[in-house]
């Protein structure tokens, strides 16, 4: 087996007395879709933020293809190919949908110290951006201001931006949060089509989606990884059922 894409070793993040990440270790293999599940407040978003460089871990290491990135800035990690999407939509709301994606292309292609040429309509940036939009099904909304998109569409736009950055590791924080059923289905299809081509870490609450998509699943509870493995193994793991699945399925049944 080749070396993993991502290795997280003994990661800790404290917010005062709260241990949001508690001695967390996990690995993500190249090309796999690795789902992270856990109850609300388990520290999933906090983990994603540390992987992407938005939050600095209190201690521990994050290795990306062997290189220790734990103390590197967000921008530096993006240049290495670690790209995240946000659980709470984070867009440039005044720019058009297309420009939001084109900026990702622009950032990937090199520095932006170019002061004169019109970049807003430059096909060098807009063509790949349009492709990414088509891919998530937003092609027809390219020229609408991002702030005017419906909530579900903004979630799709988040995905398009992440794709346009040509990630080597894609960190998706609840891409389907707040979406309607139709839209969620589309995203699941999209993720299926991405599977194998990208290395993906997916945080998601929708268990059907997770079990349909994931190669491996890690379960977080109170910032600690209590189990990590193939979906069947996770489904049967008593500790997981105890801590999480049982209660979730019970909820689902009663709902």
């Amino acid at each position: 087996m080749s070396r993993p894409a991502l290795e997280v070793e003994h990661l800790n993040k404290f917010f005062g007395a709260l241990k949001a990440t508690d001695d967390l270790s996990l690995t993500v293999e190249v090309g796999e879709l690795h789902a992270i599940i856990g109850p609300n407040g388990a520290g999933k978003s906090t983990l994603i933020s540390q992987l992407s460089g938005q939050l600095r871990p209190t201690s521990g290491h994050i290795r990306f293809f062997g290189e220790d990135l734990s103390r590197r800035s967000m921008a530096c990690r993006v240049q290495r190919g670690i790209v995240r999407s946000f659980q709470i939509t984070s867009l440039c709301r005044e720019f058009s949908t297309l420009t939001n994606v084109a900026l990702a292309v622009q950032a990937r292609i090199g520095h932006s110290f170019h002061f004169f040429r019109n970049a807003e309509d430059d096909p060098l940036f807009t063509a790949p951006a349009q492709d990414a939009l088509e891919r998530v099904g937003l092609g027809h909304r390219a020229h609408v201001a991002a702030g005017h998109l419906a909530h579900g569409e903004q979630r799709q736009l988040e995905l398009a931006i992440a794709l346009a950055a040509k990630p080597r590791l894609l960190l998706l924080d609840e891409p389907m949060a707040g979406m309607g059923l139709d839209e969620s289905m589309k995203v699941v299809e999209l993720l299926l089509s991405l599977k194998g081509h990208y290395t993906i870490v997916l945080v998601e609450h929708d268990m059907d989606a997770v079990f349909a998509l994931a190669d491996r699943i890690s379960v977080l509870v109170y910032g600690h990884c209590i189990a990590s493995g193939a979906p069947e193994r996770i489904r049967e793991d008593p500790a997981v059922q105890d801590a999480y699945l049982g209660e979730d399925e019970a909820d689902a049944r009663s709902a």
Partner: protein
Amino acid sequence: MSKIPFLRIGPPAIPAFFWAVPLVVVLLAVPFICEALGQPFYLRVASRILIFALAASSLNLVLGFGGMVSLGHAAFVGIGSYVVAVLAWHLSNEVPVLTWPIVIEGTTNAALAWPAAIGASALAAFVVGAISLRTTGLYFIMITLAFAQMIYYYAVSLQQYGGDDGMKMRGRSVLPGLDLANRTTFYYLVLVALLLCIAFLFCLARSRFGLVIRGIRQNETRMRALGIEPYPYQLTCFTISGAMAGFAGVLMANLDTFVSPSDLSMARSDELVAMILLGGVGSLWGPPLGAAFYILAQLGLGNLTTHWPLAFGPALIIVVLFARRGLVGIFGERQR
């Protein structure tokens, strides 16, 4: 539908060419109109408006496009003015500016003095920006204000150059091929300078750099997540803006042939912000429009009463409180 709260969608990008063309025609005709009215003084006012328009536009680059609320922009304008005046002072007093490590003589040659002045402003903006951009929000505002005050008090302490009272220049700079002493020539020079700067800002706003700068204003976290570290872009933006402000200062010193610390006072910085706010933050034609209204209103009220600030202050407050999008909102600049 979407649950978007109140949204202020997109100032810059598209200027109102609809208004721009007749506006430029009128501006070109101003000297003739003043001549016809027999009021050369008006031409001076018009030049002053254009120079303030340039200064306000330069501030708009950081403030409107970049979202960096700088409260000390007059300092960079004033540095431009002072460098021109100081170089001229040294020429007429036959004292070198520097004798060590190299000898620098005074000059009134625009080809030397103007780039020096613009460079000095850019350098000052670079240093101030490098320190203040390490902070954000309220801290940034306070620090730009404080540094501008520092430069102001420094100018006051320059007894050699008139201290508090400022100094008179013997004449305008000498630009080979142009007679700057001629008020019509000077007016057209200022007009061309302003239009060039606006054209530059127009290009800049939609260039790769401009998109990044405007993106940082809207959502800094998003830009970081794209792999864009804001600091170098913001600092570059701040420096470019400082250079433009310095250019405005150069023209201001030449118009008045006089400089004083009040050119770089806190009140002057606030005036520039007020012009932008009046005209429309982040729009291309807003700040020039705001500058025109501000100066004309001040002049008009000043003609009525010496206590004009009693009316002007409250008027400013009312406009800011109630006309949220500024004048370009009224004139219908196309936005998206």
